[in-house]
């Protein structure tokens, strides 16, 4: 396109970009006021309290229905995670044992590279 200022697609994109900037800037100014902070925190505090009460109520309801609650499922997930963690520990230990026992001469291909690297000389090629 010869002149981008005449391109409707470019004009559209510029308009979206400018609208985004304008709205962000306007909203940032509004959100910087103490009134905004007060209103936001009042609403947030009430929502957090309500959420806690609802959670407790649901827990009792699920118990009465003989169904597992979220916290019980989370507990099971935690046990699984703990088992997974222990498996990882075992894996890391095995890896370490294997690494320690790997013969340096000939090796098994899993031995780590030597820690002998030097930075390239100024203007030199990066290794």
């Amino acid at each position, binding site marked *: 396109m010869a002149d981008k200022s005449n391109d409707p697609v470019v004009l559209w994109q510029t308009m979206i970009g400018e609208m985004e900037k304008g709205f*962000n800037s306007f909203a940032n100014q509004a*959100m910087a006021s103490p009134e905004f*902070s007060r209103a936001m*925190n009042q609403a947030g505090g009430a929502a*957090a*309290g309500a959420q806690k009460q609802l959670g407790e109520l649901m827990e009792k309801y699920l118990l009465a229905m003989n169904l597992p609650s979220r916290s019980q499922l989370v507990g099971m997930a935690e046990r699984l995670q703990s088992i*997974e963690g222990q498996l990882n*520990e075992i894996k890391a230990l095995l890896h370490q044992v294997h690494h320690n026992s790997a013969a340096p001469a000939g090796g098994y291909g899993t031995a780590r590279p030597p820690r002998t690297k030097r930075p390239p000389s100024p203007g030199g090629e990066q*290794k």
Partner: protein
Amino acid sequence: MNASAGLGLAARDLAELPDRIQSEVQRAIQRSIKGVEYFSTSGPSLGSTPKDILHVRGTMNLYHYRPIADEIYRVPILIVMATTNRGYILDMVPGQSFIEFLLKRGYDVYMLDWTAPKPEEKTLGMEDYVLDFIPDCVRRVQQDSGETDITVIGYCFGGVLSLLYGAIFNDGPMKNLICFTTPIDFREMKLFQNFSDRRYFDVDRLIDSVGNVPPEMILSSFEMLRPASRAASQVQLWENIWNDEFVKSYRMFDRWATDTLPLAGEYFRDITKDLMWDNKLYNGTMSVGGRKADIADIKVPILHAVAEHDHIVPYDAAKHLIARVGSKDKEEVMLKGGHVSLVAGANAIKRLWPKLDSWLGGKST
């Protein structure tokens, strides 16, 4: 511009109009096809650089990335990730991975990454992160690598944790410190300051009610900094959905940005009271678990990379870091871009990563 030139330009535009219309029609068709594809497929696989899990303890995960160079630097790197987000921002896809870059340049890389703290981990405080998790990982890195010295790299709040660690354990073993977009003057995080205004924000009530701070709350507080940007980015996605590269990049960054972690309750309480309200890191009055944590006590070489258009950590919140640390060898580098593109965007690949390599290489032997 004279009248004849203006007419010439308009005539040229008119001549190109059929091609332009054809191209837009093709894109509209592609949008429909790719739009269906977008919703029926998953994004690219992220964080796939081969690694071993060295240790997992609750929210803490320590990874070791498998070296790929024939020869590596003596001093290993421990990356401390921000506690609000996942570490794969530094390991997106091959060719766009900071981790892969470091491995190719011959560094031995470990990462302290976080998973969502469980409900019973709500009691974890700043003390657990700075005096337990980081030192534990440092010990494990020393044991695994067989080296005493360690370079620590902290991203965003991972930088704050690294600074606190470095200030307290200032006699070693940290040999070099690199911080990415790390705030120290929390008065300058203006909107976060207003959101957590102590006159209206009852942090104790919040934590006592919810335990851990839910990820939705963290995400919405980030999104509120630029409330129109999510809608605008979706318009941009629709316009560019015919462009596979754009879509791939959009999906990677969008997935990461929305993959926010909850924060442990006590830790959030500590951050709010000590940093947001009392600005103790900047004032030099910070202590963790009763131990003084003044960044003036950090003496190791330090590099701080900041982004010119960072809306999460504005430059004013980060600019005093270099002046305040006690190191003689210290440098700040400011790059174009935002909070995320600094470490993972095109600018990162072209500028930040090579700069970091040239700064760190000589200090890693």
